[in-house]
């Protein structure tokens, strides 16, 4: 079953077009990845999917339903959840308050206690720092909090925008392990990454983006073997 789909999506900022007809699909229970260098429009695509910026042309479908013009908060209410680039935790709120904000929607509030236990299990460090202000956490801890906060929203699909950005290699591995764990739990995810090797290794399906277009797609294995990818991104 296809959870999320974009069809020939075009959008941009002001007069400048960034996406030139992007079509992707994310299937239930799978980890779908989008890789591509800096500035090719990955974040822009995710912003359009969440409704943070308006779509110029094309459609967005969630479980087959058209949501192209739906406001962001209504998409979240339906279970379309994004952990944004740059984490965006609420700095003057405690870790616990941040997690509560994640469970803001009616749907998520009902399962709040359950989810809280789940994310504290996943990130014991957050439990230790429950009453600490989020702004005082380290970069890695803030990323964990951002992911945990996303999980609190009870996502039908969790969208992650470069969760390893700016993290040390060790923390990057930790984040990837978490993503793998969530995948094994059956969570549907759409991951945007520049860390090509690590992402392809755990992806079910992947898209390669360049200059606002999808340049290639296939299973993680297929892409890892592809000559073009190896040259362009893996430096082998």
């Amino acid at each position, binding site marked *: 079953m296809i959870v999320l789909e974009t069809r020939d999506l075009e959008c941009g900022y002001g007069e400048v077009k960034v996406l030139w007809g992007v079509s992707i699909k994310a299937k239930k229970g799978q980890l779908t990845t989008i890789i591509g260098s800096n500035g090719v429009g990955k974040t822009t695509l995710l912003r359009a999917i969440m409704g*943070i910026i308006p779509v110029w042309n094309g459609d967005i479908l969630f479980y087959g339903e058209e949501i192209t013009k739906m406001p962001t908060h209504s998409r979240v209410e339906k279970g379309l959840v994004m952990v944004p680039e740059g984490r965006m935790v*609420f700095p003057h709120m405690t870790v616990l308050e941040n997690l509560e904000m*994640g469970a*803001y929607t009616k749907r998520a509030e009902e399962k709040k206690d359950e989810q809280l236990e789940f994310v504290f299990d996943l990130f014991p460090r957050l439990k230790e720092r429950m009453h600490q202000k989020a702004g005082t956490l380290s970069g890695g801890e803030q990323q964990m909090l951002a992911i945990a906060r996303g999980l609190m929203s009870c996502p039908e699909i969790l969208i992650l925008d470069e969760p390893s950005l700016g993290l040390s290699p060790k923390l990057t591995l930790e984040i990837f392990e978490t993503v793998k764990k969530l995948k094994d739990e059956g969570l549907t995810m759409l991951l945007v990454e520049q860390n090509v090797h690590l992402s392809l290794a755990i992806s079910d399906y992947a898209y390669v983006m360049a200059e606002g277009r999808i340049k290639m797609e296939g299973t993680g294995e297929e892409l890892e073997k592809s000559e073009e990818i190896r040259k362009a991104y893996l430096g082998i």
Partner: protein
Amino acid sequence: MLDVWIDSIISGILLGLVYGLAAIGLSLIWGVMKVINLSHGAFIALGMFTAYFLFAFGLNPYLGVPIIFALGIILGIAVYFVALHRIIDAPELSTLLSTFSISLFIIGLGTFVWTTIPYAIDIHVGSISIGNITILGTKVIAGIVSIILTILLYIFLYRTKTGKAVRAVSMNRVAAELMGINTTRILALSFGIGIALAMTAGALIATIFPFTILSGGVYELKSFVICVLGGLGSPIGALVGGLILGIIENVITLQIPTGLVPFIEFTILVAVLLIKPSGLLGGEV
């Protein structure tokens, strides 16, 4: 002589609490919406007239506070959708001009209806005397009402789900929307609360001093000075800033003419902006 000083300081504290209340409104609107509300003074004046007419119809202005507050929220939400909603993402100059035109509209209409002659609420609630010091009851009640409203606002912001959403929007609007918060509603509500605080402060001031439709400007200036003292965006800073300004104002007028007060307030404003632009107390919602 000492009695006069103590008298002034107590008056200053009580008035400072009311000034603080108005400033919290300004501060909240800035903190959540990043809008500098140049119509704040006009709404303070509108609060004064609302209290006046409620009193004329036989309602005690203090009992009228909930009504004035509710009216302020409704009016603020309406004004948000008419004048601010479409330009909330535009550069700050747009919202500045928009709130300025709201101010011109209210003051223009108010001048037409009520002219600029002074009005006063003729209310007597006695006074409190300790030794040689006598404090007017109206000031005492105004101070207490301000404290109560500030505490209620804090409970709202820190203990309720909607209040937490207001704080989340003030910290990061996109992130708040990504939590499933309808941020448009939160922005409208925040503007409503800010206006309600301005109108309520106006109503309380109207029980103490005579006023005209133009009086709001004086208190708007005080609100700006207080916010700069306490750090824009911080309610508790605004309250402390209000206390500082109230005390300074009441103590210095023992020595110098009242007419110089705005000059001194401007001097404080400029001095703080030069020395520590983030506000003497800093802080965030």
